[in-house]
């Protein structure tokens, strides 16, 4: 069984990392570790967009086949064709990234709410880990693999896989 490694990288608020790790372990029934790794998003900062290139950040990390690595950051991520991304992961890859920047209620002019942010981070983390396990977007609106392009859509879906996605996820991690 592969392990999951969370890598905090300019992540805020740091206090959420243990809760995120714990909940992911509960949900996925897979060992989840927090490890530090050399990661410098500022190298991939685009001054014109005031954003960080998620694709280049991922490519700068080493590929470790025996584990799924998920970078957790608070910087605003983008890929060249999109105005922003909440997170990024290649299908069946081993590196992914999520950002709390646009998941935080503060980004939308609302008061800070750690609980909401944690819930959204958990969903986004499970979603990207699902992609790393080869899962595509799911048409079940409440499945965590449902496509969500806004924070509201993240709120609508649950943190769980639908039965079909769940069995695919387990198959991937057990082989």
């Amino acid at each position, binding site marked *: 069984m592969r392990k999951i490694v969370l890598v905090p990288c300019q992540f805020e608020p740091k206090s959420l990392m243990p809760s995120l790790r714990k909940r992911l372990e509960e949900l996925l029934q897979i060992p989840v570790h927090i490890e530090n790794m050399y990661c410098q998003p500022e190298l991939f900062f685009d001054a014109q967009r005031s954003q960080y290139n998620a694709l280049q950040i991922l490519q700068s990390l080493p590929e470790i086949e025996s584990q799924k690595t998920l970078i957790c950051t608070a910087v605003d991520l983008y*890929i060249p*064709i999109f105005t922003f991304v909440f997170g990024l992961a*290649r*299908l069946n890859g081993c590196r992914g990234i999520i950002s709390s920047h646009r998941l935080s209620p503060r980004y939308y002019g609302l008061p800070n709410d750690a609980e909401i942010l944690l819930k959204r981070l958990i969903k986004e983390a499970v979603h990207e880990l699902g992609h790393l396990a080869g899962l595509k*977007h799911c048409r079940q609106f409440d499945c965590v693999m449902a*496509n969500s392009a806004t924070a509201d859509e993240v709120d609508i879906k649950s943190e769980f896989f639908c039965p079909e996605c769940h069995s695919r996820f387990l198959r991937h991690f057990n082989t």
Partner: protein
Amino acid sequence: MKNEDIKILVVDDEEIVRESLTGWFEEDGYTVDNAKDAVEALNKMTRTRWDIYFVDIKMPGMDGLELQRRIREIDNEAIVIIITAYASVDTAVQALKEGAFDYITKPFDPDQLSRLIRNAAKQRRLSLENKELKGSLEQLITPPEIIGSSQHTEEIKKSIEVVAPTNTTVMIRGESGTGKELVARAIHAHSDRRYFPLVTVNCGALSDSLLESELFGHEKGAFTGALYRRKGKLEIANGGTLFLDEVGTIGPKTQVDLLRAIESKEFTRLGGNETIRSDFRIICATNTNLEEAVKEMKFREDLYYRLQVYVIQLKPLRERPEDIPELVNYFIRRYSQKMNKPIKGIDREALDMLMAYSWPGNIRELENAVEAAMVVTKGPSLQRNNFKLNHSDQPLVFSSDLSLAEVEKNHILNVLQAHNWNITTAAKLLGIDRVTIYKKLRKYGIQRPKNA
């Protein structure tokens, strides 16, 4: 149709765009491929039919606009979405004018792209579903067969082909049983209105007030017994065709209302105030002499000219006996299946008898005669003695033993039977006026049979 059944081709010279979009759509479960330029895209089109194209407007060589035109030439229903930078929105608008589904500017807002692809896929699914349903309907709406190869029947078939695709009002004239309704059905089935209803109203079977209510519908309480609001046939025929059979029997009041409704395509239900609009085509049929009725002020002249736009005159069967063998064989095939009786055909002698007969009831009478013969026959083919025709065994022979009065009586009777008891036609043929023919009928005690 699942997402994986929708095929998307991304055409962009920037690798990052191709890869990112391909990855994004793959995550959504679509089948995706990409091309770096128009030439590669056109090559890929020859191998696969793509449902949705994402085309960058600015590419080296053939640009997105030209590629869109090529795509349209190959598959007019494919969905093309134009990718553009802010600087070239004008060109994107040009693409929209040329039929692009939408355009999206770089960099894309994920939410906008998600919605765009969902809508495009929905549109494509609907368009394919619509095509499929139309295909199934085409199989169901097989135009009725017009049997016969006489010059007259061939001309009728040509007339149907000519008039069907237009919206012109058609008047079908002919004796009872010559196939007026069949021609009306054929016109409807060959027209663009074929997916909409063909509503038939037999004007002769209804009283004037009932016909009015039948045509225009009525509101609740419009008259005693009008317990519910009811749509009229004009309203039901919206998009389709209204076939008015025996149009010559319509009463004067309904004629006025009908004329107005035909001209304005607007009417009100009986007892109602709401103006109803309906897009219908009129086909009407009559076996009476409408010109005579107009002269006698029984039929409005303006309505007559409104209905008499394109006339199809069906000849009685006795004037085209060469159609009889084909018709007989057609009815034999039809009734052998219905009755589960393997009848092969008809004897020459029996066929000669049928061809010599005057068929006052026309094709309807022929069909009934064949059906009746099929019931009684015991052999593998129909024989002369299986048919029970009126006067089939009494050819028009005037014996030298008959008096002049008897010959006159027989001749008048024969002419009347041959023309379905149409007094005006018979009088014209006999070279006498209608009053004289009535006098002769009284004189010889000839009575019109009830079923004539």
